[in-house]
C-alpha cells in the first residue's frame, strides 16, 4: 500500500514527478498551475534536485533542454499561453531526441484567454506542439490519482523514446483536491544514466554531442524514424477506458474532466433505460482509433463528443474513425465556464431520446 494523502491535483503532479525521478524543474508562473512550481520549489531541494524560476517560459524550457542533455529527469509546466511560448523549445527537445516532461494545465483560450479551466489545447497538444511536424505522447489523466500514475512513469516513456512527453490536464483537475495514493520513490543510480547523456558524473568520459540541427539526408532519416515510432505508439501504447460499450446505442467520447461529468450522466441515463456508453482516451496521442473504429455500428446510432471547449477539438479525430457510419454530435462549455452534471445529462438526453 502506498501513502494516502488528500492533495491538490497540481501538488500531486509535482510529488509524483519527484517520486518518478524528476530532479530538475524550471518554469514561469501562470494560473491555474502555480502550485506545481511552488511545490517543486521546496520539494526538489529536499531530494538533492534543483528548482529554477526562469526569467521567462522560453528560458525555462531551454534550461530543461540543458538538464535533459545531462541525463537528468527534467520537467517544466505551464498553461496554454505559456506552452505556446515554450513551443520552440519543445520542438528543439524533439529534434535533439531529449526526454523531458511538459505539463499543461489548460485554461480558456485563445490568447491570454481566461484564468478559469478549459480543455482548449487539444489541437495544440496533439497536432502541433511546435514547428516541424513532430509529436509527443500526450497523456490526459482524469483525476489526481491518475495524474500521479502518469507522472510517475512519464520519464520511462520519454527515455525509452528519447522524446518529450506531454501531460494535458485542465484547471479543474489542477485545482481539485482529492485522495491520492503515492507510490514509493524510484531510486535512480548514476549507472542508470542514459548512455547518450553528456554528463561526466560517475567518472564517465565525454559522450559526444547533442544537436537540434542536421544535414538534409540525416534529417530525413530522423523524420522517418520518428514516423515509425509514432506507428509503434499506435500499436503498443494506446491507453483507453471503455465503459459500458457492450450494448451501447450511443457512445460518448470524452477525456479528462469532461469524462467524469459524462460518466455521472451516463450512469443516470442508464437508470432511465438509455443504452449509453463511453470511450475515454487516456492517451490523446496515440489516439484510441481502434476503439472508435471497431464499434458495432449495427447497434451504435450516434457518437457524442463532449469537451470543455467550443467548438469541440477532438471531433475530427473521432469523425475519421466513425467514417460516416453514424452521426457525430458535440456538446461543450467554453471560455472558463465549466461543464456540470445537469448540463451534460440534458445534452446527452436530448440526443438519445430523439426528442421524446
Amino acid at each position, binding site marked *: 500500500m502506498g501513502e494516502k494523502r*488528500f492533495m491538490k491535483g497540481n501538488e500531486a503532479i509535482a510529488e509524483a514527478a519527484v517520486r518518478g525521478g524528476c530532479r530538475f524543474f524550471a518554469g514561469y508562473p501562470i494560473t491555474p498551475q502555480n502550485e506545481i512550481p511552488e511545490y517543486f520549489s521546496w520539494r526538489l531541494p529536499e531530494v538533492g534536485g534543483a528548482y529554477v524560476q526562469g526569467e521567462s517560459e522560453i528560458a525555462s524550457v531551454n534550461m530543461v533542454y540543458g538538464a535533459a542533455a545531462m541525463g537528468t529527469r527534467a520537467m517544466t509546466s505551464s498553461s496554454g499561453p505559456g506552452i505556446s511560448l515554450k513551443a520552440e523549445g519543445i520542438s528543439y527537445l524533439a529534434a535533439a531526441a531529449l526526454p523531458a516532461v511538459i505539463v499543461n494545465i489548460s485554461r480558456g483560450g485563445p490568447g491570454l484567454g481566461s484564468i478559469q479551466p478549459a480543455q482548449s489545447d487539444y489541437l495544440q497538444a496533439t497536432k502541433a506542439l511546435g514547428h516541424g511536424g513532430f509529436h509527443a505522447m500526450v497523456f490526459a489523466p482524469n483525476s489526481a490519482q491518475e495524474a500521479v500514475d502518469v507522472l510517475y512513469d512519464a520519464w520511462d516513456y520519454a527515455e525509452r523514446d528519447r522524446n518529450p512527453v506531454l501531460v494535458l490536464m485542465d484547471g*479543474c483537475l489542477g485545482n481539485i*483536491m*482529492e485522495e491520492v495514493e503515492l507510490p514509493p520513490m524510484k531510486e535512480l543510480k548514476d549507472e542508470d544514466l542514459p548512455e547518450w547523456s553528456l554528463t561526466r558524473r560517475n567518472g564517465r568520459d565525454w559522450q559526444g554531442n547533442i544537436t537540434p540541427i542536421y544535414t538534409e539526408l540525416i534529417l530525413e532519416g530522423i523524420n522517418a524514424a520518428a514516423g515509425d515510432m509514432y506507428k509503434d505508439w499506435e500499436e503498443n501504447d494506446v491507453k483507453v477506458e471503455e465503459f459500458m460499450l457492450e450494448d451501447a446505442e450511443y457512445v460518448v467520447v470524452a477525456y479528462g474532466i469532461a469524462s*467524469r461529468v459524462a460518466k*455521472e450522466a451516463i450512469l443516470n441515463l442508464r437508470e432511465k433505460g438509455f443504452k449509453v456508453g463511453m470511450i475515454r482516451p487516456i492517451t490523446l496521442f496515440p489516439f484510441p482509433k481502434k476503439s472508435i473504429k471497431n464499434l458495432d455500428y449495427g447497434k451504435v446510432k450516434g457518437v457524442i463528443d463532449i469537451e470543455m471547449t467550443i467548438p469541440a477539438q477532438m471531433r475530427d479525430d473521432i469523425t475519421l474513425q466513425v467514417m460516416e457510419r453514424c452521426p457525430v454530435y458535440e456538446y461543450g462549455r467554453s471560455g472558463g465556464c*465549466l461543464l456540470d*452534471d*445537469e448540463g451534460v445529462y440534458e445534452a446527452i438526453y436530448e440526443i438519445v431520446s430523439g426528442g421524446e
Partner: protein
Amino acid sequence: MKQSFVFSGSGGQGIMSAGITLAQAAIDMGKHATYLPEYGPEQRGGSAKCTVVISDEPIISPLPKFCDNLIVMNELAFAKYGEDVKEGGILLSNACRIADPGEPENVTVISAPVDDLALEVGNPKTANIILIGILIGATDIVSEDAFRLSLEEKFKAKKPEILEMNLRALAKGLEIGKKYKK
C-alpha cells in the same frame, strides 16, 4: 450517501477554507471527498466559490450544478447561485449580508448572522467554522466528535486560545444547525 456543498461569497470570507476543512474532516472519517475551488483574478473581494462532494463511494463527477447544501455569504453569491439548491436541500444564508433569502419550495432555509456571530466569538476569521458547525448540526455528513478532533489536530501547534476560539465557533454553529435537524 452522497452530499454536495457549494460555498459561495467573496474572497476573504473564508469560503475556500470552509470547503477544505469540511472535505478534510470527511476524509479523516474515512469517507471520499472532492474539493474544487473557483475564483476570479482578484486577491481580495472578488467572487469565490468552492464545490465539495462527500460520499461513502468513490466520487465520479466533482461538478454538480445543483447541490444539496448551498452556502451563500453575500448578495452577489445569492443572486448568482441562489436557485442552485436541490429540493430537500439546505440554503444557508448569511443574514448580515443577505436581507431576504426567500422561501424556496422544499428547501430548508437557515438564515444566520454569520458575520456577527464570528465577531462575538472573537474573530471574523471564525466564520468558516461557524458555517461548518451549522451544517454538521443540520445534517449527518460529518460527526461532531470527529470534526472536533480534526480541529484539535489542526490547531495543536498554535496557542491554546486559538483552538478554544474555534471550538466556541463550532459550538455556536452546532447550536443553530441542530434546530433544523430532520
